[in-house]
Every structure is written in structure tokens, then in C-alpha cells.
């Protein structure tokens, strides 16, 4: 989804509310945090629906993406690549690579939520940036489970409804480029990227990726330059590693959900 930014509620409930006896967080406060993120991000499915329809996907294809893929960056990447004329395999590869980070979220959530095994295949679909960001900071397992369920359900329902509305609306709008809607996809990517650019490592990686993506544009088939630019991640890690660990980035693991968005 449009995993962003917005607010990552860390607050522990209403000011003045007495903490529950077990030192946890009041359920209502957890639900409020979860709904805040779920609603704000869920509404941005509209942008996806419009973009997808404007990229030439049918209503069914657009809705299938939101229902089945349900991870915004990958969805935007896929329809963008298809609109640019990329073949389905390179388009899907780019979308898949973006979705790989969800595996790491699942790893962390798995320990925190301690889900019964039969529930895991169901819960998996909701393992995304936003649910991770709201769930990980929760102080207790109960709070984490509430946060995950409420964020996941709110987002899933809203994201799919707004996708449908956006896809239907795109037809009424006619040529989506007239309305500037072709800028929605890249703006979503930029909004996701901005909070990740915290240290030199991230900035150098992003810069190198941009150079590769644009520089290779005329010489490689459509969609392939974006895949090649993914190599800037291991290359920069390797070079930074060789430069020694006293650099400004030797600050430990960077996969907090906060930057995952």
C-alpha cells in the first residue's frame, strides 16, 4: 500500500489515563493508533486505482492486484512497468523485489504475535509496512495482536474499496494524464523513499540507482534498468564495508519498520 510516512503513533494512550495494572497499554489507545494509520493509508488506494486504470489495466485486474498483492509499492511498480511497455516478467520481478522486505517484517512479527500455525497463512497477507510499524512498538503481546488485527483489517478493507472507486473514477476522468495522475505513482515512491534516506549509505545507494535507471534506459529493454539498479544496494554495502566500520553508518541494523515505509 501506500506505505508512508504519516504518523507513527508511539503515544501510550490518552494523557492522564491510568496505565493498566499489567503495565501494558489500554486497548482503546492501541485501537486508536491502528485506526489512524489504517484509515490514512487505506484511503490512498484511490491513487492506486486511478493509476492502475490509467495504465491500461482492467477493473478486474486492478482489483485483483489490491486483493491479492496488497503491498502498495509493488502494486504501483507493477502497473508503472506495464504502462511503460515492459514485459510481464520484468514487471513482476521488480514488484517482487520490492515485496521481499515484507519477509523481514514477518520474521519480527512472528516472534511478537506468536500466532498459532493455522492462522499464519491468513495473517501473512497483512504483513506490510504499516501493520509492522504499528505493531512492533506495542509493549505487550495482547496490544501487538490488537494493533496488527485492527491495522490490517482497516487497511485491507479500505485499500480495496478505494482501489475500486479509483478505478471506476478513472473512466469518468478520461485521459488521466490531463489530470496529472501519471505523477501519482512516482510521488508515492518518493514519499516512501524520503524517510529511508537517513544516512550516507542510503543516499549514495539512491543516487547510484537513479544514475543506473536513467543511464541504462536507452540501451536495455523497458523495465530492465530498474532491476539492474537494484544492484546498487549490494555494491554500496560492499564499498562501505571496505571503507571500514567507523563510517557514519555503522549504526547497527537498519530494518526498523519506520524506515521500511
Amino acid at each position: 500500500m501506500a506505505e508512508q510516512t504519516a504518523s507513527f503513533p508511539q503515544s501510550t494512550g490518552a494523557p492522564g489515563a491510568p496505565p493498566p495494572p499489567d503495565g501494558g497499554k489500554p486497548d482503546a489507545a492501541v485501537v486508536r493508533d491502528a485506526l489512524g494509520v489504517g484509515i490514512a493509508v487505506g484511503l490512498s488506494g484511490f491513487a492506486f486505482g486511478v493509476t492502475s486504470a490509467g495504465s491500461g489495466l482492467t477493473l478486474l485486474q486492478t482489483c485483483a492486484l489490491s486483493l491479492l498483492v496488497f503491498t502498495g509499492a509493488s502494486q504501483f511498480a507493477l502497473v508503472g512497468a506495464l504502462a511503460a511497455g515492459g514485459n510481464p516478467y520484468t514487471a513482476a520481478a521488480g514488484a517482487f523485489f520490492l515485496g521481499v522486505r515484507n519477509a523481514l517484517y514477518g520474521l519480527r512479527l512472528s516472534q511478537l504475535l506468536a500466532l498459532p500455525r493455522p492462522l499464519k497463512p491468513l495473517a501473512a497477507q497483512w504483513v506490510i509496512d504499516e501493520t509492522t510499524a504499528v505493531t512492533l512498538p506495542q509493549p505487550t503481546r495482547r496490544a501487538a495482536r490488537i494493533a496488527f488485527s485492527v491495522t490490517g483489517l482497516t487497511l485491507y478493507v479500505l485499500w480495496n474499496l478505494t482501489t475500486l472507486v479509483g478505478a471506476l473514477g478513472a473512466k469518468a476522468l478520461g485521459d488521466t494524464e490531463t489530470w496529472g495522475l501519471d505523477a501519482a505513482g512516482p510521488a508515492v515512491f518518493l514519499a516512501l523513499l524520503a524517510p529511508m534516506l537517513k544516512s550516507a549509505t542510503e543516499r549514495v545507494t539512491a543516487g547510484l540507482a537513479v544514475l543506473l535507471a536513467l543511464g541504462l534506459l536507452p540501451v536495455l529493454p523497458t523495465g530492465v534498468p530498474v532491476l539492474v539498479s537494484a544492484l546498487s544496494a549490494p555494491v554500496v554495502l560492499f564499498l562501505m564495508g571496505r571503507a571500514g566500520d567507523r563510517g557514519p553508518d555503522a549504526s547497527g541494523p537498519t530494518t526498523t519498520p519506520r524506515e521500511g515505509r
Partner: protein
Amino acid sequence: MNIWIAVGLTAVGCYLAKLLGLLIPAGVLERPLVQRLAALLPVALLAALTAQQTFADAQQPVLDARAAGLAAAALALVLRAPFLVVVGVAVVVTAGVRALM
């Protein structure tokens, strides 16, 4: 048909990535190098996608109204605007510049 292939592959791939994280034992992916690479991969892809979808027309680099829209979005991000505002600003500015050109 080609689009359905892409939709199907993406759906299966992304779901399996999500499920894998919940199923594999903790510790397997906890190596610092793997963590750092997984964190950096989206940075590279998002940067490349932003550039490609802003400055490319098929296989040619171009500078058009989208660049103005993205510059406005970047400004909105610097000003800490909410996500929906950032996207909205990009769309409105792109449409405005395109109408003027």
C-alpha cells in the same frame, strides 16, 4: 493475457515473501548483512522507480510536466506534509504545468 501473467506472478511472489517471514525460524535472516541488504534494496528500487516514472518516456529520458510535479512533492515532503498531500500536490502541479505548456 500478459497483464494477467504479471498480476499472477506478483501476487504469488509477494504472498510467499510475506508467508516466508512468518514461517521460518527466527535467526535465519537475523544476520546483520542480510538485514542491511534487505533494508537497502527498497531504497535502490524506489529511487530507480521514482526516476524512471518521472524522467522517462518509453526508452528516452525526458523532462516534462512530471518533473515539476515531483519537485513540488519533494518540497511537500521537506515541509513534512502528510502522505496524501504529497501525492495530491504532485498531481495538481503536473496537471497545471501540462495545461500551461
